[in-house]
């Protein structure tokens, strides 16, 4: 029985997820790129005076890293705080997971402490942010009225992923560098080897299973927002300046200067 579950979660699911992810991403990106027009206008930039690529990048950076457009909302601050907590938390958590596949030149002791404190703290921040966002979605009628299955499904999965991740990091603290890490590398290098991960704890199995399901779902729902905005012409393209090249004073434009005009007075 155990081996059936392990075979499913550690061998079948990873490759199903990989295929779903690649195919889904390809379909999505193709549909974004093949839509070429921008409703007949030269520029649809939403931020004024973005005439240079630098300005566009600066705003994009500010938008994504500071959520500044949420900071001056008329009535609601939970979105601002929740988004900051969740996204910063989850990005640090994700980055930390890289240590599973790329070797880090630090002692095992230090590694485990970083995982506990930094990983734990950012995981908790992400969890708190997520609860704040979910609470807002459920608790505020106007947000509830624009919430659909998709919105709860993705967030529900994420809650599961984070809870089981935190359980590992903060409570059970299994040794994953000799179990999960070699297995993950074996999967990613297409030489699957389930031996190292055999007999790993239930919490880890659930965390991995939920994560894989979540990843497989990413291209098909709202989670595409993570990359979709990078294709949005409203925030990624420049606008064109007007008025910089007014014909010179001695050109024909100003030639009808009245008798005794200001210059001669």
């Amino acid at each position, binding site marked *: 029985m155990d081996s059936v579950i392990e075979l499913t979660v550690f061998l079948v699911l990873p490759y199903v997820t990989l295929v779903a992810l690649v195919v889904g991403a390809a379909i*999505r990106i193709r*549909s*974004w790129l093949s*839509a070429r027009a*921008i*409703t*007949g*206008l*030269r*520029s*649809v*930039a*939403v*931020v*004024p*005076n973005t*005439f240079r690529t630098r300005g566009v990048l600066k705003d994009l950076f500010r*938008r994504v890293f500071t*959520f500044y*457009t*949420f900071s*001056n*909302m*008329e009535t*609601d601050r939970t*979105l601002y705080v929740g*988004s900051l907590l969740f996204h910063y938390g989850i990005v640090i958590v994700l980055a930390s997971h890289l240590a599973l596949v790329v070797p880090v030149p630090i002692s095992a002791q230090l590694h485990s402490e970083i995982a506990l404190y930094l990983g734990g703290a950012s995981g908790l921040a992400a969890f708190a942010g997520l609860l704040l966002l979910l609470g807002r979605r459920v608790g*505020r009628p*106007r*947000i509830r*009225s*624009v*919430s659909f299955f998709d*919105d709860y499904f993705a967030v529900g999965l994420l809650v599961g992923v984070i809870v089981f991740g935190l359980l590992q990091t903060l409570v059970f603290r299994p040794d994953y560098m000799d179990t999960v890490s070699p297995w993950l590398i074996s999967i990613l290098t297409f030489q699957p080897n389930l031996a190292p991960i055999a007999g790993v704890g239930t919490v880890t199995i659930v965390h991995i299973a939920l994560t894989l399901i979540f990843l497989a779902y990413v291209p098909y729902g*709202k989670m*595409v*927002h993570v990359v*979709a*905005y990078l*294709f*949005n012409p*409203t*925030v990624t393209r420049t*606008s*064109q*300046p*007007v*008025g910089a*090249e007014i*014909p010179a*004073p001695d050109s024909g*434009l*100003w*030639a*009808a*200067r*009245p008798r005794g*005009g*200001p*210059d001669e007075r």
Partner: protein
Amino acid sequence: MSGKPTLTYGDSSSVVPFWAKPELVSKLEKVAPHPEGTKDLARDVRAGLRSAVAHNRNVRIAVDACVHCGACLDACPAYLATGDVHNSPVGRADLVRQALKGDGGPLGRLERWFGARPLDDAGVHALATYYYQCLECRRCGETCVFGIDQADVTRSVRSVLADQGLVSRYVATVIEASERTGNNLGLPPPAIKSTIDFCRDEIKEEKQLDFPVKVDAPAYALFVPPSADFFLNLETLKGYMTFFHLAGVDYTFTTEHAELGNFGLFVDEKHLRAIADHLVGIARKLEVKFVIAGECGHGWRAFKQYVIPRLEEHGIGAAHVFHLVIDAAKRGAVKFDPTKNGATRYVYQDPCNYARGGDLIDEPRFLLERVVTNRQDSPHSRERTWCCGGGGGMLTDELMPLRLEYAKLWFDDALSIGAEHVVRPCAICKAQLNATLPKLNKARSTKVAYSGLMDLVYRALVP
């Protein structure tokens, strides 16, 4: 017909624009109207939506990337004023998302299994109603972290509906007049000329300046104001004429395209282009080297984002009249006396299409600073400005209940800093303020006045 629609908070579905009659639609679309009952409206709208979403990247991303965070609810004047979630950025877009769900194919079958209902005729009418309650103000696009601009979705959806003969009577009437006569109001050339002469007389009296004005004559530049300036905003018109005279601008009016506005922007690309290309054609016929735009928000957006690129193809330059006034003022070619506008507290409110789509934010401020002594920005200004409440083709009587609600946002904003005079250099803003300010002033026992910017330039200009 039925009486005045009543607006209850949370449901704005009762305020519906009059729809264009088939005869008007067929004039506009240049196709015979479909005889009743021979077509499947919902099916055709669905097909149209699919294609709009597939072709326009800003629309595609709007449908795909939205996470239903609701930030745009807080930004949308239509939602804040009515509390109806369908009359909001994300709510409106979801009408489209729902319409596209459960459509055809295996995926559609799956979605239907999950409860998606294919669009029906009632759904089409809900779509049309709510999409004509949008001001196309782009406040949502500025606030959404992904820059999802529902105003462009509105333009696309209205275009799809128009293709099926469903278009606001007001917007269709204006487009028809514009394409037939060259201006939105249908003003004939003699009316335009006599208004110009009337203004010359007034300028002679008020400024002791007497000068000839070219109409349909060869000149270096073509000047194109919104047609409302020949009708409602004569002070603005006098401002342009006096400035051009004092600065020595060699320009002509045209009676063949006496319109900066372009209602095509509110409905579809086809009419946007047809109207704009007509203007480009007139500029080429007159062999001008430069085209100058007057005060009009949406007209400026259409001009900047569509007309200017076309003019450039023919080597013709272009700018807003503000750019020219600034240029002349910086050179000392014109002088202002701001005391001529009194000690009134002027509050500047950016027209949406200047601030969000027209890149015209600092220019009007530069001028206002020089032509009045007491000026302040509205608390919500620059890219956070509130729409006047008449944008997006909503400037029609049957939508007045909504226009009044929408207007309270900027009115309260202005009152909060003790405004005595609101400055909005835009033909639609001015028409909307003209219609709503008396009612708003009465309700609050205030006496707030309004004007454009060239009106104030006019009074301050030293002859």
